[in-house]
Every structure is written in structure tokens, then in C-alpha cells.
């Protein structure tokens, strides 16, 4: 960095401090960015702080969140303006108390490329996601997996369990979107490979290679019951949905109690605490009664056409306590059944001792459900994975 060396040392130190500040605020700053920033410091762009700010901004930001915070951080560091308010507003605790989030992500298995993931899956392995989740989770985590979600109360445990819920959602995705390519038989000829082989037989294409259509990734539509009877479980499902929304290419999420709300765009926010805060605002009235039939009717009428196009899997998290008219839920479930590929109903009560689906709503809905499963612990969520990957 010959040009960078020309800059006064004081300027470089100040810049280094700024880069550290950005990292503390979740910016993704690598060595290359710092080098380039030093290069800018030596360029005409450093003539005034304002110019330097416009030049550093595109270099250091990587997404819209960064873009929104950058100016304030820059002003705080270089112009010593509004320092206190900026750190309060971003709401990030000092680095020392915060677990090294980015580092943890990177060392976990979920950052593997899809190809790696696929390679790691032995074909006969009944439940690879489960195994993997346990591989990078030590024994205490294993205990967490099987605990009923109601009984997890310690803040540190809650945090761990949340991370686990999100990771599960990601692992499922890796399996669901796996694709095949060239194949022994298939619908279309793979001209490129066939031709290559034909060279060996003097131009006669004796061995054909075919291409198999890649299966399209599944669309996932999640409907969560947020009524009072589900209150102990909704935070977990909300986190699971957040993980799924951010991991799946095509996922939609809705929440319902007495009315239905589309929360896909809210959960798409990568910043989970903020997403959950906003979810609280959107789903106002959470914790009251349930009108499952009425909400499903709304879904069928207004959202189904958009949300269910193609192959879609509908996942309903609910205990099935409906306060609507008898027969209405069965009718709406029938309509829903016609439009989607499969319906999965997750009921946290199944995990309870001696549970039988005797609530009227649950009895009405059951004939239309393809898979009825427990969802009272993280383990039970993980157990869904092999079922989800069935084509």
C-alpha cells in the first residue's frame, strides 16, 4: 500500500478505530475493506469529512441496515457528534458482553454450501439433520432439545434454544432444496456429456447421458395460532418461523387469533429482536380467543392464490381450540386441501401425557391433515425434517 503509507499515521489510527467501531455494529469489514479505506484516505476523496463519508459509505456498507446506520456512526467517530445517542439507538451492548455472533455462525455447520451439505448426507441416514444439530451442539444442548418449551425459563437457556430453533429451520432448508443434475435416465438428453462420450466411439453416441429436471424448491406457508391457549409456545414458533423465512427462498408466514395477519415481511427482517418487536405490533390482540375457521376463510379468500401457487406445504401451528361455528373449520380445511400439496399440523399438546385430539376443531380438521405431529420441544421440531424432505 504505497499510497496509503503517505497518509499521516494519526489518520490511519483514527480510521482503524472507525473500522473497529463498524465491526462492533455488525458491519462486515474485512482486511480488504480496511486496505481500500486507507487507499481512500490518500485519495482526493479525503478532502473534507463529508466527501470522505460519501466515499466510505458504499465501501463499508453491505445491506440496507448498514446503510441506515452508517452516517450516524461516521459523524460520531470523526466529528465527535451524538456519540452517546448513537450507541443507545442501535441498541447493541458493548462487544465484550456480546457473544461473538459472527464467529459462531461461521464455525457452525449451517454455513456449508448446499453441495457440501448434500455430500454430507449419507443416503441411508434416517435423520441427518438431527444428527448434525447434535454434532455441533454439545451435551447441554441435547438436554435442551428434549425439554418441553414451557419449562425453559432461564434467559441464557432461552437464548440457546432460540439459536437452535433457527438453526433447525436452516438445516431443513438445506435438505429441501437439494437438487440432482445429470442422470442415467431422464427426460432430456444432456448433449454436452453425450457428445463428449461419443468421441471415444468415433462420433457414434453409444452412451447417452440424460438430464433430470431439478425438483423445484418447496414453498413453505406457515400459519401460527397466537391465541391465549398457545401463549407459552408462540415465542418459539415465531423464532422458528423467523429462521425459516430467512432460510427458505419461498416462504410465507401468517399469524392468526381472532383475525389473520400476514407477517412474512415483518419476519424477513434479519435482525431478530427487531422483527419480533414489530411482530408484536402487527399481531396486536395476541393472546385472546381463536377463530381458526374464520381466519382460514380469510386466508383462502385473500392470500391463498398468491401464497399457494406451485407446490406448497402448509404448516399450521395450533392446538385446535376453535370458537367458530361447528362445521366451518372442516369446510375451510377442505378448501385449503384442494389448493396445496400437503398440510402439516403441529400441535404442542401432543407432547403432553394422555393427549387425545378431542377438541371439536381438531377433530374437524384432522381428516384433511397429512401429518399430525407434536411440537412441544425442539426435538419434536427436528423430528419433522425427514418427513418434510419427502418429495
Amino acid at each position, binding site marked *: 500500500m504505497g499510497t496509503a503509507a503517505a497518509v499521516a499515521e494519526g489518520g490511519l489510527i483514527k480510521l482503524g478505530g472507525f473500522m473497529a467501531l463498524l465491526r462492533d455494529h455488525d458491519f*462486515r469489514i*474485512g482486511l*480488504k*475493506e480496511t486496505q*481500500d479505506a486507507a*487507499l*481512500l484516505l490518500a*485519495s*482526493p*476523496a479525503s478532502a473534507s469529512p463529508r*466527501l470522505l463519508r*460519501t*466515499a466510505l*459509505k*458504499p*465501501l463499508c*456498507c*453491505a*445491506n*440496507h441496515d*448498514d*446503510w441506515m446506520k452508517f452516517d450516524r456512526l461516521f459523524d460520531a467517530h470523526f466529528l465527535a457528534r451524538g456519540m452517546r445517542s448513537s450507541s443507545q439507538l442501535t441498541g447493541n451492548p458493548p462487544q465484550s458482553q456480546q457473544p461473538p455472533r459472527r464467529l459462531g455462525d461461521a464455525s457452525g455447520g449451517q454455513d456449508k*454450501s*448446499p*453441495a457440501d451439505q448434500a455430500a454430507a448426507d449419507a443416503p441411508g441416514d434416517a435423520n441427518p439433520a438431527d444428527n448434525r444439530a447434535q454434532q455441533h451442539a454439545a451435551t447441554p444442548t441435547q438436554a435442551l432439545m428434549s425439554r418441553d418449551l414451557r419449562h425453559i425459563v432461564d434467559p441464557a437457556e432461552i437464548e440457546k434454544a432460540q439459536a437452535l430453533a433457527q438453526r433447525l429451520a436452516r438445516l431443513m432448508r438445506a435438505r429441501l432444496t437439494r437438487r440432482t443434475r445429470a442422470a442415467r435416465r431422464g427426460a432430456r438428453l444432456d*448433449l*454436452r456429456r453425450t*457428445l*463428449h462420450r*461419443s*468421441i*471415444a466411439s*468415433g*462420433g457414434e453416441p453409444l452412451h447417452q447421458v440424460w438430464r433430470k429436471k*431439478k425438483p423445484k424448491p418447496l414453498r413453505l406457508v406457515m400459519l401460527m395460532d397466537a391465541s391465549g391457549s398457545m401463549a407459552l409456545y408462540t415465542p418459539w414458533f415465531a423464532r422458528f418461523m423467523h429462521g425459516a423465512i*430467512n432460510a427458505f*427462498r419461498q416462504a410465507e408466514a401468517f399469524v392468526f387469533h381472532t383475525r389473520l395477519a400476514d407477517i412474512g415481511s415483518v419476519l424477513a427482517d*434479519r435482525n431478530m429482536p427487531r422483527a419480533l418487536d414489530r411482530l408484536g405490533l402487527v399481531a396486536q390482540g395476541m393472546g385472546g380467543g381463536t377463530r381458526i375457521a374464520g381466519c382460514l376463510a380469510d386466508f383462502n379468500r385473500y392470500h391463498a392464490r398468491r401464497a399457494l401457487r406451485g407446490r406448497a406445504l402448509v404448516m399450521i401451528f395450533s392446538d385446535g381450540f376453535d370458537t367458530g361455528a361447528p362445521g366451518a373449520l372442516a369446510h375451510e380445511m377442505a378448501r385449503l386441501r384442494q389448493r396445496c400439496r400437503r398440510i402439516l399440523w403441529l400441535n404442542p399438546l401432543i407432547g403432553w401425557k394422555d393427549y387425545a385430539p378431542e377438541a371439536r376443531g381438531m377433530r374437524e380438521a384432522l381428516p384433511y391433515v397429512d401429518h399430525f405431529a407434536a411440537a412441544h420441544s425442539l426435538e419434536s421440531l427436528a423430528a419433522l425434517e425427514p418427513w418434510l424432505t419427502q418429495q
Partner: protein
Amino acid sequence: MLTRETIAGKLAGVGYIADPDLAAVLWLMDYLGRPLLLEGEAGVGKTEVAKALAALHGCELIRLQCYEGLDQNAALYEWNYQKQLLAIRLLEGTSAAESLEAHVFSAAYLLERPLLRAIRSARPVVLLIDEIDRADEEFEAFLLELLSDFQVTIPELGTLTALSMPRIVLTSNGTRDISDALRRRCLYHYLEFPDISRETRILLTKLPQISAQLAGQVAEILASLRKEDLTKRPGVAETLDWATSLIGLKVEDLGASPEAAYACLAALLKTKDDRANISLDVITRLTGKLEAV
């Protein structure tokens, strides 16, 4: 190398009214030699930036539209199989297998797709990779490789290095988050909807027949309309359509004719909910505010 001021001036010269920060980013692209990732809502003019950049440097624009299932063969290169088969038949019996292979896998049988064309061009081009968030993640990883070393290895032919460095612009609608690795390699710019004065200037530049008064009013209405609760906020292209239809109806002063403004709303609002939300009353209220100004 162009300075920022000349870039801003030249952008206006080619009909693109940029905000000052964008000129700085375009300068930075050249200075650091990095690709640019543009994000922003649909209709803020992301694609236009690439077009303007090409016009600015007077070079060719190569566009790669991404979609789900886009693969190397469609983006990078493909062998011309028909021609190869034909050649094999023609040369049958006349040459040995090895020389035949070397022959049919030569550059003459290679179809260049946008990415290969961009790096094999003798003069630097502007490469627009549009809506990268629609492509598969595998494609993103592959793109990363290309962006880092600017060379392509074709198994039958060897490694082809870049003849010139293309200026690369990637756009994303933010529907799917793209990987950190790709983001880190790029400069980032978030395009906002233009403010009132910039939108007025855009209208005046793109529609020479519009009066300054109408342009200002249209920009103002759009600014307040975008603050309404809409599922799909109207973009710059919609503004231009709407202004064109207003000119067609010979509207001079929007404040005096809210009905005409309402009649052309089909050019602005493109979902059923939005049409239902913005009634004649709302338009009257918005145009009423104009008179007060």
C-alpha cells in the same frame, strides 16, 4: 480517470439525473475496481444506472437477467452442439479421434454467453447482472469465483483470462438475502425514491413537452402518494407514464383537475388493494394541498 464532478455532469448529459452520492459511488467503482451492488425498491431506477454508466463511458452494455434455475450454460458459455455434430459427421473417417476432438472443441464451436462475452471483450464493457436475488445460491457462488479472478476455465479449451475488466453492476430487490461473501466483494448503494426536486428534473429531462408547473405538481403528488399505505409504491417509470397520460389529457394544472388525475391512476397503482385505498377523495385531498402551496 474521471473525477466525481465530471461524472455527475456527464450523467446529466446522458439523461440520468443522479443524486450526488451516486456520482461518488460510480467514481469509487473505477478507483477501487470493485463491482457495485445496487439495492432499492422496484422502480427506483436501478437498471437505469447501468445504462447510464454505459452511456457515460461510451461502451457496450451487456445484460444478464437472472432467474431461478439460471446455470453456467446460460450465463457463461455453451458448446454449439449442432455444429459439432455436423463437423463430426463431415470429418468422419478423414481424421484421427484426437485431432477431431481438438477440432470440435475449439473456439469456433463455443457460444459466448453474457459473462464470457463481458470478459472477452477487447474494450471494457458495462456488465449488468440484473436481479441477482432471483438466481440460485449455487449460481451466486459461481459468480463470486468469476468476480474474484476474472478468468474462466473451460475443461476442453483451457483457461480464458479477461481481456478487459468490465465494470460490473449488480442489482437486487432484496426479496432474498444474498450472501455476505458477495456483498463484501461489492460496493453498496441503496437507491431511494427521488425527492421532489430530483423527480421534477427527471420529468423535465425525459418529457420535454411537460410544463415546469405540471412537473413540479406531479413530483409533489408522487412524494405524498408514496407516503400512503400502498402495497406497491409507484416507481419512476410509473411517474413518467402518469405524467405522459396527463399531458395526453391536456392537463396544465393538477390542482384544478383532480378528476383527470384520478382517471389516469391506472398508470400509477397496479394492485387491486391500492386502487381501492386511493379513492377520488384522497386524490382531491392531495391536489387540494397543491393549491395551498
